[in-house]
């Protein structure tokens, strides 16, 4: 199974306890699968997960994606730029 880098930002970082970590992931995931896996790994994240989008290699993840070693996933809480 691929090992990917997972990044946590803003109000997702404190509950995750880190800004990034290496995580072993299934070969194929969708947004719900990523949320479930990260929520199981860091129960404190579960409160913010429903509002978070997931990014895969700098694009928002839509549908399913095949993961490879070294890929980057990120939890994207509601943004507030501008």
């Amino acid at each position, binding site marked *: 199974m691929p090992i990917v880098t997972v*990044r946590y930002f803003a*109000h997702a970082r404190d509950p995750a306890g880190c800004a990034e970590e290496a995580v072993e992931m299934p070969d194929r995931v969708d947004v719900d699968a990523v949320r479930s896996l990260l929520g199981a790994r860091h129960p404190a994240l579960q409160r913010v997960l429903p509002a978070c989008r997931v990014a895969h290699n*700098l694009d928002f993840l839509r549908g399913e994606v095949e993961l490879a070693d070294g890929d980057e996933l990120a939890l994207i809480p509601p*943004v*507030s730029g*501008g």
Partner: protein
Amino acid sequence: MALVRASLHVVDHPLTAEATSPAALVGPTDGAIASFLGVVRDHHHGQAVRSLRYECYVPMAEHQLERIAEAVGAELGEQPLVVSVWHGYGEMVPGDVSLAVHCASPHRVAAFDACRAVVEAIKADLPIWKEERYADGSARWLKGS
């Protein structure tokens, strides 16, 4: 292609005159330049804001700006579009400029529409988060805008 040129910048400081002025887009082919500046305010929902920090997922923000410029250019159809975007992150105080968007096109409707579409897309999709620090000592991550 409608997008003629895009100049996209994510920088770790408040924006300076180079970013906030539309002067770089002035030229003899585009008759209209529409611009937008986002400025740090000293109040938010009635609370006095002392300072704030923008956190940014920089490589994704740069990549998403490219996506946004391409998508907005495509929406304009045949109208040529030149886009310049600057977003700052890090520590800022009220009065600092955090965002500058400039859109040039031969005609004003295309320039206005493009500028507004770029700003809305940035507000929706750019991975940047604002943490406000209030005069009473509290701090809060903003959710949405």
